[in-house]
């Protein structure tokens, strides 16, 4: 056993897969110990806040102010407020007004503004512009003037009489230190369509999905092992019946059965466990076939016959003389079943047949939510991309472990 383990861990593929899988597992276990918030808590009022550090504006007003005279602060301020659309519109006006097209560079904010200042004249009549467009340019010009102003902003509060009273002046060169602001929240992956912290939700979802995969894989492997063993070892009528059923379910697509069963169970009854059990019940076919094939080839080996002659009981023969020979195969099958169980849950959830949505997140449900709210088309990558990466990493690592084991146990594939 010790020797075998050493041999397995010497396989590069297995080791890479094992490392990725264990890392994910460790994150799933330890992350909730650090971030203690419930994963489905709705914190954001609104949908899809982008990833980043969220600093409380109210608290930052009270924090100590530091004056930093940074050279490019003004330019950065304008650049961040001047959108691509506005830039393109400015370039359009300038070309219509007769400025050479090659002189206009909309990526260079400073040059663009200078060009605008020297050329723009709101009284100038440019043919082809509608009144609405003309007004748009006037508004744009006004807002640009606002951007360029260096006046301070005033913070005011209402006093007892309900009159505004100046409380503080904030000049463009005032800064606060984020460490001194009372409320700062880092959302590394932003929030989802419900306003929930995606990272916390994702970690929980990965854990639940892995559990679903594990339960489904365990059930499938147990059923497959039992059927395969009985068909292969007992043979005869039992073999015929089991093989008949197995052959049927090999061609009837299990995913279709899964859809049918999940839909029939109904939304209220579908918990994560139920889904796991249903997936397990529909995916034992491959294990059963393979175990049977192996047992048939083992059944008439000498050591099995010897055991029979010695009067050992059936359970004893199966446990001592057959199982050890197919153990490696069964473990490999289990690994694959876990991986396909996770994928099956994800597929079901995207079709709206996943676990009911109120209790726990799963990777598939997160995907489903993101798709329903069209995150992929609106460009909210943080809502779906980390989910896909997590699913792919889990299933990739499991399959890599499987390939590694295959190379250890099947020397023909090595060299």
């Amino acid at each position, binding site marked *: 056993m010790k020797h075998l383990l050493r041999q397995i861990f010497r396989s590069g593929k297995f080791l890479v897969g094992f490392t990725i899988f264990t890392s994910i597992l460790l994150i799933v276990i330890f992350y909730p110990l650090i971030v203690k918030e419930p994963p489905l808590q709705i914190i954001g009022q609104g949908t899809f806040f982008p990833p980043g550090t969220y600093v409380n504006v109210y608290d930052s007003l009270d924090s100590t102010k530091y004056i930093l005279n940074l050279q490019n602060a003004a330019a950065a301020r304008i650049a961040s407020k001047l959108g691509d659309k506005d830039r393109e519109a400015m370039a359009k006006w300038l070309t219509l007004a007769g400025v050479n097209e090659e002189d206009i560079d909309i990526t260079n904010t400073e040059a663009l503004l200078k060009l605008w200042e020297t050329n723009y004249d709101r009284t100038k009549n440019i043919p082809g512009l509608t009144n609405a467009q003309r007004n748009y340019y006037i508004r744009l010009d006004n807002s640009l003037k606002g951007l360029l102003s260096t006046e301070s902003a005033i913070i005011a509060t209402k006093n007892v009489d309900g009159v505004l009273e100046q409380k503080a002046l904030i000049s463009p060169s005032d800064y606060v230190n984020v460490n001194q602001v009372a409320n700062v929240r880092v959302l590394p992956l932003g929030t989802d369509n419900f306003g929930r912290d995606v990272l916390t939700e994702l970690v929980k979802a990965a854990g639940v999905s892995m559990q679903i995969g594990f339960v489904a894989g365990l059930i499938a492997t147990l059923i497959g092992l039992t059927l395969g063993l009985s068909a292969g070892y007992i043979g005869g009528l039992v073999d015929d019946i089991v093989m008949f059923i197995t*052959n*049927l379910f*090999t*061609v*009837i*697509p*299990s*995913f*279709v*059965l*899964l*859809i*049918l*069963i999940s*839909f*029939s*169970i*109904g939304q209220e*009854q579908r918990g994560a466990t139920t889904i796991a059990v249903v997936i397990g019940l529909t995916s034992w076919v491959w294990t059963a076939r393979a175990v049977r094939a192996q047992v048939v080839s083992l059944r008439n080996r000498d050591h099995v016959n010897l055991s029979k002659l010695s009067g050992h009981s059936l359970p004893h023969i199966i446990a001592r003389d057959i199982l050890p020979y197919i153990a490696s195969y069964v473990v490999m099958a289990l690994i694959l079943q876990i*991986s396909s169980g996770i*994928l099956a849950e*994800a*597929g079901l959830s*995207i*079709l*709206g*047949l996943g676990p009911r949505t109120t209790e726990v997140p799963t990777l598939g449900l997160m*995907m489903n939510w993101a*798709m329903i709210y069209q995150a*992929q*088309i609106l*460009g909210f*990558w943080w809502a*779906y*991309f980390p989910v*896909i990466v997590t*699913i*792919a990493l889990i*299933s*990739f690592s499991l*399959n*890599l472990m499987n*390939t590694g084991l295959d190379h250890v146990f099947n020397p*023909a*594939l090595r060299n």
Partner: protein
Amino acid sequence: MKGYRRYFLNKLGWFFITLVAAFCLNFFLPRLMPGDPVAAIVARLAQGINNTEGVQAIYQQYAELFGTNKPMLEQFFLYVRNVLRGDFGYSFSQYPRTVSAVLAASIWWSVALQFPAIITGWLIGNTLGALAAYLRGTFDKILLPVSIFVSNLPAFGMAVILLVVFAVNLKWFPTSGGYGFDLIPALNWNFVKSVIIHYQLPFWSIVLIAIGGQAIGMRSMSIYELNADYVKYARFLGIKDRKIVGYVFRNAMLPQITGLALAIGTMVGGNLVAEVIFSYPGLGSTILSAVMGQDYPMISATTLIVTIMVLTATFVIEILYGFIDPRIKAAQSE
């Protein structure tokens, strides 16, 4: 030809047995589930109605419509009769369209998308896998991990990635649908062009996934065959490498064909989900809208149609396999 008869009859027999079994599962599974589907439907419809007699009347009407007030066996024969006539009843969510009408509009989109894509992926995957086994070295070192990773991406994941890169960011292809929203299906160049453009992303997302899985399988098979005794013997006899490789890959191919027949069900299942991502007007989207609309007759009919699709595809592959594998001919003429 005569030698094949038993093989074909055997396969045909299995085709019908599985068909009947699938049909029975399709009928009995939902009815074995806890809860009364009709009661569930009525509960949803009758929300806000507090007149018990009214609710009772709605229940009666639906029980009549679905025939659930009749004994199970009678229901079954009614169902068989109706399905044979192509009658799956009315769709709930798209009433007054019949389920058959909805399915007739969507099934060809799925068939035309999935089967060409699976076959293309299978061909490319096998070629790459065989090359990896033959060339080894860097090509193999790169291809194997990439294939493992790609084949482990769920079909919908690949679909989303392609969608975001090529449709949302690069804007080369449309984001959703099977044809432009401004077009009405007709046989003119405008429509066909739109269909072809909309076809690309769903097609390639399926092809890429299929390539990964097939390449891994073909690689293992080819390595196994390349190390077989007959190859060593042939080399020993001085037969040209090119000729040996031809034999090796023909032999490695055979299990891959069986593998395709067995895996087609899984592939179709995964691809249905990919269709949903692209809002492709096929069966996947039909299932989604049926689930959303709690459309019971529609789900049941769609699952039956997908099963029949997969069974037929499997049957066709097995028949082709009979022609290709010399062992089958040999076994029959004994």
